[in-house]
């Protein structure tokens, strides 16, 4: 309050001011407080501009598009490299995954269409000969373990790319191929898998 003696001195003024302070006690939102204090701590004072946010969203979308594509390219390399080391099922085309890159539609559509049109193409690539401790123990056949890990990697990468439908389909394929598939899933996939009932 001002030190000016001509205002706020009379009982009437004081009553109004007291009433005003009781009536007017609103405070800014916690969100505003947090944003302001964060800006002060960071030494910046600008709100994220919509163009900045749009650019960030575009980068995120691009990453979602590129990650599955890169993974498929990597897989294609694996298939080509390891093809001589495995014997594919008789009903699976030898190299269904080898599609000319120029003909590959956008990744998310690609995954879905390949699942519906050629389920065998979703088969995970065979893994290289493992040299880890479990292989040394001999408790699990080396090829089975490697194959399971390839499934798991495939499922995890599809989920990471946001393609839940393709991941679910891959899980069902994994379950059909490996009897105790769910028990081999890493903890971060188990809850998700448990919510997806086994299909015949």
């Amino acid at each position, binding site marked *: *309050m*001002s*030190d*000016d003696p*001509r*205002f*706020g*001195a*009379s*009982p*009437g*003024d004081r*009553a*109004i*001011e*007291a*009433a*005003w*302070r*009781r*009536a*007017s*006690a*609103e*405070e*800014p*939102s916690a*969100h*505003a*407080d947090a*944003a*302001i*204090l964060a*800006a*002060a*701590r960071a*030494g*910046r*004072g*600008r*709100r994220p501009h919509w163009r900045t946010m749009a650019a960030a969203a575009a980068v995120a979308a691009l990453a979602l598009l590129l990650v599955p594509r890169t993974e498929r390219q990597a897989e294609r390399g694996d298939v080509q490299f390891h093809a001589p080391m495995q014997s594919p099922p008789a009903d699976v085309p030898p190299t269904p995954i080898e599609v000319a890159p120029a003909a590959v539609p956008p990744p998310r559509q690609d995954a879905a269409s390949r699942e519906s049109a050629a389920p065998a193409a979703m088969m995970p690539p065979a893994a290289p000969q493992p040299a880890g401790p479990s292989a040394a123990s001999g408790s699990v056949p080396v090829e089975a373990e490697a194959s399971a890990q390839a499934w798991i990697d495939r499922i995890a990468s599809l989920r990471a790319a946001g393609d839940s439908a393709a991941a679910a389909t891959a899980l069902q394929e994994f379950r059909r191929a490996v009897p105790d598939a769910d028990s081999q899933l890493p903890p971060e996939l188990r809850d998700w898998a448990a919510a997806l009932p086994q299909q015949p």
Partner: protein
Amino acid sequence: MPEATDESLMLAFGRGDAAAFERLYGRHRGATFRYFLRHTSNRAVADELHQDLWLRVVRARERYAADARFGTWLYTLARHRLVDHWRSQQTTPLTPLDSHDDADAADPAGVHELRDHPADPLRMVIDEQACGRLVAALEDVPAPQRDAFLLHVEAGLPLAEIAALAGVPVETIKSRLRYAYRKLRAALEDLQ
């Protein structure tokens, strides 16, 4: 140990002391928010303007020079932000913030002080209804008078600084305050 002044806290913040800013913000956050709220009557808009104001303060930390009271500087920024908001909405208050209107002219010499009402009925206990009536009554006060009242009562600025901030003589600010007090008084008297 004397409490740090606003000015010293702002200067400390300019040197990188974020804790000084937190103290400064804690002192003024409610008043600046309510300043915008009473002028806009919209919590979301007030929140946005409040946030913009303080982000401006953060941006200006290294340029701040304590040659004026921090409060005066802060509410200068606040008024500018408010005017920008009204411009962007292509709406202006019924009376622009710094206009001279009939309320200013009604008592130009400042001879009728509120203290001239000795038998003031407002010493009564003021209840919740009265509080709501006060807030509504201030919404009906023209923007220049409302602004003077908020800067005086909410922000605690001296009359001379309000006058400098508004670019009008001190007597005009007194006149505006009298008008605002009278309107609020009338709102409470209606309850009796």
